[in-house]
């Protein structure tokens, strides 16, 4: 089947109301239902909003639900940070299904590479919301 748009029409994925915006991504995260984007051409899945595929440039990207549990790809404990970030916190690149996302590890928790982690809440810094993860 062909779902290519006729000339002059816009593909569903190119419709701004369908696009994964920062606002939509944030609301989904706050609801505990993280969202990403899957590319219909190359299959790459990203964990944060884009206007097109970051790997191949295709506009044929559609929003997908991401799992709430994943695996730690790498991590670091940060002692020197901007004042409002505190210190001694951990950040981690987390593989959520096929997508990878930078998350903050819950205060007092500590994770290692390959640990299974779960999205348990959100953290706000300077008006932006990110996912907080805990070891399972």
């Amino acid at each position, binding site marked *: 089947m062909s779902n290519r748009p006729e000339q002059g029409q816009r593909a569903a994925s190119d419709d701004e109301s369908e696009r994964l915006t*920062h606002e939509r991504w944030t609301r989904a995260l706050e609801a505990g239902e993280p969202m990403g984007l899957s590319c219909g051409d190359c299959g790459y899945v*990203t*964990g*944060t909003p884009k206007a097109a595929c*970051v*790997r191949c440039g295709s506009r044929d990207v559609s929003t997908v639900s991401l799992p709430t549990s994943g695996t730690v*790809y*790498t*991590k*670091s*404990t*940060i*002692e*020197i*940070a*901007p*004042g409002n*970030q505190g210190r001694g*916190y951990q*950040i*981690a*690149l987390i593989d959520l299904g096929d*997508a*990878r*996302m*930078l*998350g*903050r590890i819950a205060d007092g928790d500590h994770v290692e*590479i390959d640990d299974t982690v779960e999205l348990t809440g959100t*953290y*706000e*810094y*300077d008006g*932006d*919301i*990110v*996912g907080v993860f805990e070891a399972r």
Partner: protein
Amino acid sequence: MTDFGVYTKPIAELFADAALPAMEDAGIENGDVDAFYFGNVLGGAILNETHLAPQVASHIGLPPGTSVQRYEDACATGSLALKHAVRAVETGEHDVVLVGGAERCTPAGTGIETSEMTRIFGSGAHRQYEQAPGMTTASVFALHTQRHMHEYGTTEEQLAEVAVKNHYHGSMNSRAQFGEEKTVEEVLESPVIASPFRLLDCCPFSDGASAVVVVGESAAESYGVEPVDVAGISHQANASPVADQPNPPSTEMVRRAARDTFDQAGFGPGDVDVTEVHDCFTGAEILALEALGLVEDGRAGPATVQGRTRLTGDIPVNPSGGLKSKGHPIGATGTAQIVELTEQLRGESGERQVEDSTRALAHNVGGMTATAVVTALEART
């Protein structure tokens, strides 16, 4: 280039201290300069100064009619300006281009406290998806290095050896900000900044300036000085945020830039005599050695411990002391690497001279491993 350290003088005065000697060294007069490409990263955030190129050009006396422009590409700024200078000369747009950078970003020189300076330095990270969870400049290289340690068994002791080696080289460089030698124990006992990096795994906050002159191939010798050839230069980008980078510790954009640069130069990593890499953190030098093809993947830690990257080793890296010891005034770093390598190829490096150097390589990385410039230089024989 200036000594790197702490300065409180205006940016234009700081740059003049690098630019006027560079033009004298090249044998060119102010009126010969067709274009001036100036690198500066944090002037807007720290000094409330943007659009610095006309101000700096005026201060050093470049005549009206000189095409002047500022470049900003995080820590790769100076090399990006150099790339544009090389391309402008190659295409015949300009015959003589002055290129360099200056930065004032030390807490001591600006009165800005370390945590606030850490926030400003982090502005190269994606605001929504990297700054918000708490990523800092140190922590992006820390994330890559932790994964490298996991995959290849790289150790904190091996990282410390990078710092020890670069401080040893820096002890022979009068321009170095921290030119005293360090021991592995001192590095491992210093406080954690972003694990696995400790204070002595990290380059300092630095002020300073550097400059070089780029001229066309045929004109080079007419100035009566000893030029070196830019054999190749390539700029490649990587995804931002880091989460979207393929195999993050591979610094894949460096691999693309190195391939392209070696293709242009007609030689390969095995032919390089001396290299300056972007060792903003010890782990960054480990990743660089592998991405440039100087050692195979996973072997940079052991190669460092074996002394292969020392002045006397078979792949001397960062004879200047690198960012680690010499310092890292962001916008000045790229062309400072070129100054060091030019002097090495001319045999002017004194105690830290790598003997019989004819081919050199520079590696400059910007932002959250999102930009790289790799440059190959060659002596004229």
